[in-house]
């Protein structure tokens, strides 16, 4: 009988760690090359921003390392592979590409699934997410030397945006476009601060959130985002209305907050930014499962999920060291039992322990198979939560 999980002793430096370090070095080196090339051999690189550049390079290493380690986990490795297989399945590529665009727009860009969790919660996430996206879209190309602005030679009333050293577009320096462009980070700070305030409000007022939240996981990211936005706004206030009062100090303070945030990216809640797109792969995996053979519960005989999903889970559990196999039973592996029959087996086992102590006799179910358990209350919020639960738990 195996308790917990059986793990084999491995080498001192696990191969996945070595692989993750190499991936990290590779991604960081690639970004370094792109910075050199994109800034035309650093000729457009702003030396004042060098600390930001190096912090992004470090974050790139950390993120790639953590992503690689995450992909090395047995369940993640299986679904990463399965997700791509499902996406590139022959005969479905065009449909999958269309579906990808639709899911990307609905889930990632519009945060519809978060809005369904709560409108205010969705709005909070939209404000923070779009504020950060806007800020990253502006600052990263500037920090890498991929984007810079210059006065147009011969006409000093015009400004020209240079992307990778090529002229992209021109605009008058006293126009509304210039005002909106040059204050892009101010608008992003407004969005982020509004979002952070709403998030803090929820974390202070909601009893459920209060019970579950952790400082490092839930408050630290909000504090960092607020600090970055506030010090950024202080810079604008300093040079716009205070003739640059305290500018150098605020600039250093801002750099510290930004660099701290970058360094925090691989470790805490921010990692979900890079992890979350896996949701799209899970969607394609389920699509393939629905189009193929179902798994039938080997107790009640009802279909409950895709055969592929059950077989993948058996493989994942084996790799993790779980031993749910049932070699002397026609079931073969506990994974072939649907969730309701698992609950029934659990109750049957406890009931059998009391046989002869509390009265009652074994009930003859008069069927070839044991009956499938049924929900006592299938009402909203009491039974299956959605269509997928209905499939998992079947009628």
């Amino acid at each position, binding site marked *: 009988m195996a308790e917990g999980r059986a793990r084999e002793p491995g080498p001192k430096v696990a191969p996945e760690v070595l692989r993750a370090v190499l991936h990290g070095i590779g991604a960081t080196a690639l970004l370094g090359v792109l910075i050199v090339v994109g800034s035309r051999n650093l000729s457009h690189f702003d030396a004042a921003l060098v600390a930001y550049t190096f912090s992004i390079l470090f974050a790139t290493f950390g993120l790639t390392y953590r992503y690689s380690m995450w992909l090395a986990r047995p369940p993640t490795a299986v679904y990463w592979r399965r997700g791509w297989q499902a996406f590139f399945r022959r005969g479905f590529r065009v449909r999958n590409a269309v579906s990808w665009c639709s899911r990307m727009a609905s889930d990632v860009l519009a945060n519809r*699934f978060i809005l369904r969790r709560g409108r205010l919660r969705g709005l909070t996430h939209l404000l923070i997410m779009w504020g950060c996206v806007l800020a990253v879209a502006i600052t990263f190309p500037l920090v890498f030397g991929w984007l810079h602005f210059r006065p147009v030679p011969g006409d000093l009333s015009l400004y020209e945006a240079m992307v990778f050293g090529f002229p992209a577009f021109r605009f008058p320096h006293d126009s509304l476009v210039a005002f909106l462009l040059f204050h892009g980070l101010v608008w992003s700070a407004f969005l982020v601060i509004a979002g952070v305030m709403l998030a803090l409000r929820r974390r202070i007022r909601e009893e459920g959130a209060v019970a579950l939240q952790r400082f490092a996981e839930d408050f630290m990211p909000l504090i960092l985002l607020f600090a970055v936005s506030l010090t950024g706004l202080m810079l604008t206030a300093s040079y716009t209305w205070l003739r640059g009062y305290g500018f150098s100090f605020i600039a250093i303070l801002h750099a510290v907050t930004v660099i701290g945030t970058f360094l925090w990216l691989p470790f805490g809640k921010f990692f979900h930014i890079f*992890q979350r797109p896996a949701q799209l792969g899970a969607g394609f995996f389920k699509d393939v499962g629905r189009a193929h053979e179902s798994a039938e519960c080997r107790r009640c005989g009802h279909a409950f999920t895709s055969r592929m999903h059950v077989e993948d889970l058996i493989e994942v559990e084996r790799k993790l060291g779980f031993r749910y196999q049932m*070699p002397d039973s026609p079931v073969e592996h506990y994974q072939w039992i649907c*969730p309701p029959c698992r609950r029934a087996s659990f109750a*049957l086992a406890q009931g059998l322990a009391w046989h002869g102590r509390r009265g009652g006799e074994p009930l003859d179910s008069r069927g070839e198979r044991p009956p499938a358990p049924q929900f006592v209350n299938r009402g909203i919020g009491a039974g299956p939560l959605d269509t997928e639960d209905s499939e998992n738990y079947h009628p």
Partner: protein
Amino acid sequence: MPVPERFEFFIDASRCIGCQSCVQACAECDTHKGQSMIQLDYLDRQHSTQTLPVVCMHCDSPTCAEVCPADAIKRTEDGVVQTARKPRCIACNNCVLACPFGVPKMNTRMNLMMKCDMCYDRTSVGLKPMCASVCPSQALAFGTREEMARLRPRAKPVNSFVFGAQLIRTKVNVMVPDDARKEVVDVTAAMFEPAIGHDVLDDVFEGGDA
């Protein structure tokens, strides 16, 4: 704040009277407002009124957390396996299918697995979970081992379960007779056994005089 160590959860499914108080009370919990995480099933609706309430058993080595590709399920230091962390859960359904007790639920619209977290908002401050506080037959009970020993002298708690070749230990206990020889409940061995109970049709067809 962690759940105080002296308080434990005790399940005795054969005491369940199917009143659904737990189902309704569960939906009042602040960590999953409006949605009940209790799984309350009829075991054999045609022949028996027996109902079985199942809450998360909070395994020591939770299969749901281990098979989660997004690393979204965490077990806190007090042994409570928390529901999926909302930013991480990718709604892949692995945990729902892998849980040996059939506990988690999948909220597809929200792209989120949801499950019992032992009413963490209440238990972490020393209160009983919603289900245990309203259960009239105390099929779901929460308290100290001493209290349970006093209230149910003919029963003892067990928290080891066998599934095939796998032994799973849990934070939540089930009640078995005090003279039960085995300290483990073999779940898979009972899978095809008939339920123990009183047939609901006995009185109709065998009562004669009625």
